[in-house]
């Protein structure tokens, strides 16, 4: 996956369903079109939930990166 420079980073480490999705939704609503949001997460459910959320909202899911003990997810705001 290519490297992205996120405009904003949302730290959801330690949070479980449904908090990461809701916080993502809230953060995205305050962002501009074309900006990139980075989400840090530790809940295995997020791996499925974020792409589905992005698809439903019309945003572009850019992918995920594995870091030490957590994942980084990238979404491009519609």
């Amino acid at each position, binding site marked *: 996956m290519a490297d992205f420079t996120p405009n904003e980073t*949302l*730290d*959801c*480490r*330690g*949070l*479980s*369903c*449904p*908090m990461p*999705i*809701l*916080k993502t*939704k*809230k953060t995205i*609503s305050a962002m501009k079109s074309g900006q990139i949001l980075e989400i840090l997460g*530790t*809940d*295995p*459910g997020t*791996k*499925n939930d974020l792409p*589905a*959320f992005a698809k*439903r909202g019309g945003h572009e899911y850019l992918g995920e990166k594995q870091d*030490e*003990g*957590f994942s980084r997810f990238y979404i491009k705001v519609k």
Partner: protein
Amino acid sequence: MSQDREESAMMNLLRRGYGAIFYENWPIWLGGVLLGIMSVITFAWARPWGVVGGLRNWGDWFFKVIGLYSQAPVSPLISTNSLIVLGLLWGSFASALLSKQFAIRMAPPFELLKGAVGGILMGIGAAMAGGCNVGGFYSAIGALSLSGIAMMIGLIMGAYLGLRYVYWELEHVATGSAGGSVTSASGKGLNLLAVEPYLGFLALLAAIVFTWVYADMALTREGVLALCGVAIGIIIQRTRLCFVRAFRDPFMTGEAEVPRAVAISIIIVILGSAALKWTGLRGEMVYVPQAFWFGGLVGGIIFGFGMVIAGGCGSGSVWRAGEGQIKLMLAVVFFSITVSLVERAIDASKALTALMGNRVFLPHFIGYRWAIISLIAILLLYYVITTWNEKTEKFMVEM
């Protein structure tokens, strides 16, 4: 030479098969179908699938140990209630290891509090409804009990209220980020993640040995039930089939994937257990809770609210605890002790018991044919309405 190549082709095949089963999540509808089939197998073998009975058994046992209760419950190592939940916990633990998803996941303090409070509310709700989302709703509707429908309505209302609360919390409670509370997923020196699949394999092997040993002690029924629990744990962990989502998603994201999976799953259970009951192989009143309608409806509302803030229902809290989530472990502990206390209080009071309602086995009133048709119709209605809502977002609650 060619033998080498054949072997490596075989290894490749096995590796890909393993990847498909344990590294990629299964579709949720498949989870619903498999869970339905496994529930029927469990009922045919001994008894319906349930969770709260096991949690209550642990709570009773805890209060006996600390001296609050004078009477000892059936040992958690013999009680079928307890064994089936131990199996669920063990199965999801093994499954999380096999998919390299096991990690002790710490949560921020406020989340831990929500886990505990959610557990307490679920304990109260389950005691009133005669079961959690499994025994009071899933297996109860499967058992052709009308209180399952009362609880379903309660769960929908409770999930809606729970979501309203979570939205309010997002605006007003500054939990902030969870920074700092990173998981202790993999040890630094030794790479735990790489050995997790082997540990998972050992855990599964241990479950089979356990059943073997139980069979040798003439406890075949109990041992195999635990193994049924393990199978259910693997199915639910791999598909992440979550009953909270079945009620919350239509309001939160509008998605209807999980509501559809749960509706299909229960239809399978209805058909299977109707066959077992009609033929007289199983008692008609099995898993018909005394909770129509007050206990089911009001218990469902309290339970539904609790499961949304805990982020896991009866089964969901247990399998996520098996995955290493501290918040859900707390939910299970508080759920167990609350359900033990509240059920005891209800049992002790004639007035409270009567308030919860009656045991209504639908075929006694409208016959098997119409009981099956009307229950399936209600589930299909849920299927259709949630799918319609997926397109129109009519029921979605904005933040």
